């Protein structure tokens, strides 16, 4: 047949792989520059571990967000879920009341249920995901304030504080472990399981997925449940880290999670994206924050730079799509 066609495929492949690796190259580049600029403070092992720690809560949220976005949706409610589950976790973690397992189970369960309801709204209510989760974002924030009676819930046990505050071998923060484990499970599910493949297919072409015998509605409910559950986990960890349940915490966390996903090259239109996208995205945001701190760049400028990076990432995405057809 036409050799031109083959050649075209070839070129496209090269372009696609370049884009795929682009974000990794950018990441390595930025880390390299920061190491050169500040070898004494940035490149120190303790600081590097600290960066991963700073990335971990956002990274856990972004892992859940990855599932939702690849399926073609979006979840704006995760920041509010963080607050609600944190408040619930802290409320059941007062000394001498319940065993530690109770706040852990309840907070993550609340997240999972909230996500499940989001999924029901999207899949069976046929409401656009943006609207469903915008609504639930507001409602759940309200519920967090109601449960906490408007002010932070203090007085939690030492064991509760230790969930996020502890260290493995006195060096690696537990937070880092949770992040790594979550990202690893997420990556495995996305790349190696039937479910993961179906998430991609629903985001890639919902009608074709349905014709192929896939229960699209169930996949949708599942991805929002995952996102909600992981937001519940993040809320638990945040409450443990700040040693209280704060109903006004987690504001705009959903945007950080979306930013991490987008920077990681995962397309907002669904159906494509690599398993490591969210990890790299979350790490990159943390690296930039940390590096700019060390370089004494003011927080105001940091926002400016972070925003510019998000736009650049999406620009790459749009450009690559324009070239594909």
């Amino acid at each position, binding site marked *: *047949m*036409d*050799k*031109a*066609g*083959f*050649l*075209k*495929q*070839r070129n*496209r*492949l090269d372009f*696609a792989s370049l884009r795929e690796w682009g974000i990794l190259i950018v990441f390595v580049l930025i880390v390299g520059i920061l190491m050169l600029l500040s070898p004494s403070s940035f490149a120190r092992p303790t600081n590097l571990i600290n960066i991963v720690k700073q990335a971990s809560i956002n990274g856990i949220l972004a892992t859940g967000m990855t599932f939702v976005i690849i399926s073609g949706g979006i979840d704006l409610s995760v920041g509010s879920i963080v607050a609600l589950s944190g408040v619930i976790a802290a409320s059941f973690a007062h000394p001498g009341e319940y065993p530690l397992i109770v706040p852990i189970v309840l907070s993550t369960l609340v997240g999972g249920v909230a996500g499940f309801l989001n999924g029901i709204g999207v899949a069976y209510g046929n409401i656009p995901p943006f609207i469903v989760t915008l609504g639930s974002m507001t409602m759940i924030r309200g519920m967090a304030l109601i449960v906490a009676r408007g002010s932070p819930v203090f007085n939690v046990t030492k064991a509760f504080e230790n969930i996020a505050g502890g260290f493995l071998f006195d060096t690696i923060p537990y937070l880092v472990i949770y992040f790594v484990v979550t990202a690893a499970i997420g990556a495995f599910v996305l790349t*190696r*399981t*039937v*479910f993961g*493949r*179906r998430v*991609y*297919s629903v*985001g*890639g*072409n919902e*009608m*074709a*997925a*349905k*014709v*192929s*015998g*896939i*229960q699209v509605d169930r996949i949708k409910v599942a991805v929002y449940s995952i996102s909600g559950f992981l937001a519940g986990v993040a809320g638990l960890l945040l409450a443990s880290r700040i040693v209280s349940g704060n109903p006004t915490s987690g504001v705009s966390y959903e945007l950080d999670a979306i930013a991490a996903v987008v920077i990681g090259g995962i397309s907002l239109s669904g*159906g*494509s994206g690599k398993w490591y996208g969210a990890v790299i995205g979350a790490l990159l945001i943390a690296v930039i924050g940390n590096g700019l701190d060390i370089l004494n760049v003011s927080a105001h400028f940091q926002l400016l730079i972070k925003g510019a990076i998000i736009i650049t990432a999406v620009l790459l995405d749009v450009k690559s799509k324009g070239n*594909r*057809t």
Partner: protein
Amino acid sequence: MSEYILEMEHISKSFSRVKVLDDVSLKVRAGEVHAIVGENGAGKSTLMKILTGVYSPDGGEIRLHGKKVEIHNPRMALAHGIAMIYQELNPVLDQDVAENIFLGRELIRYHFGPLSIVDKQAQHQHTQELFARMGVDIPSKALMRQLSVAQKQLVEIVKAISLSCSVVVMDEPTSALTEKEVATLFEQIEKLRSQGVAIIYISHRLEEVFKIADTITVLRDGRLIGTDSVSNFDHDKLIRMMVGRNIEEFYPKQNVPIGEVVLEVRNLSLGKRFRNISFQLHAGEILGIAGLVGAGRSELAECIFGLSRPTTGEVYIRGKRVDFHHPQDSVRHRVAMITEDRKLTGLNLKASVEHNITLVALSRLSRLGIIDSDKEAQVTDTYIKELSIRTFSRKTLVANLSGGNQQKVVLAKWLLTEPDIIIMDEPTRGIDVGAKRDIYLLMGSLAAAGKAILMVSSELPEIMGLADRVIVLAAGNMTGELARHEFSQEAIMRYASEFRQNG
């Protein structure tokens, strides 16, 4: 002065040292419909892109009215009177018809540089005059969004005329049209021809080419195979030239013993789409469903597959009543569905060939929900080879494949589920002759293997060539059933138009 309005001589073009056009010449007279045919990749669109200035040729020259011209971009082509009506139209949907016709060259009432005021009234008046001249019945104030595909196409054609184009290129203009709309389009082509406009007509549908063209040029692998008056061609000769090998029989019908009934449909109805349809489908049988566009053929196929629920009636598989709520149920009962529009409902264009092929049968390639990648790669490669899918690798995005190869991916996806009943809705729509032949051969061997095939097709030669039996629908009713020895184009068309006439 040459007798030809347009001469493209010895055109060559290479992409990265691969010759896609090799010394191709095309000469078009004023007032003729000149069809260019060839398989996908033959170089038709490259040649047209050179004519309209999208690509520049490596060698050769273009002459218009005997004078050599250089065309560097589509705007220059338009200035030379060459217009192209694209396969996929892109009008501004939220503007009205007149605005689209005068897009980019608006009639100005008051000149204020970039803030000039458009004379809408004059635009509407001119548009209506143009329409009246062409006998087109579309209100100039209608929004483009409200028009059918055929009407949008007519607007494009009128636009080409309003630019006083002398050469109009049409690339697969009928791919999205109903038969009635095709007739309207052909009337317009006749009018253009009578006004001395040269029309270059690219189509996969050979019946159309024979109907409308005066001259046919055949391209194959970037080379000119022949140009001749349409009267010197017949169907077989044309296909032979296009494919480059001798096709004894384009529709390879295998004689397969017909087995027991595997699918039975009793009095199936779906609202106003179709009513009281009953038929039986046997193992080893290819049953054709014929009818005009809108007769309810696709709706019937989709309903049997469980994409919609019938209002009344029953479906039986091997004598047992089934009630499919979701395609998942059909897949479990070993029913496969190749849908009408592979891009819309057949493929995930964002995924690879591999991920598309294994999508339905994934649970069988996995244990405890975890995919066995080695096995997946292995079966994918098997099917790529078996169906001769032309792809760089199994990891290639399916979007980068040609239409014929994409269709084979859809087929592979369903064959992997080892279906007993295969529903095919327009299985060869918009694909080249070579891939068509491959799919026909495949259908034959599937039937020989005892599969039952239900084929919906708008191409009568295809149905008559392959089916053992055909049922005909008209306006949602089953109006006839013909056995293979009773097949004739006239009989099928008579049944297909039966209810139309009775209202």
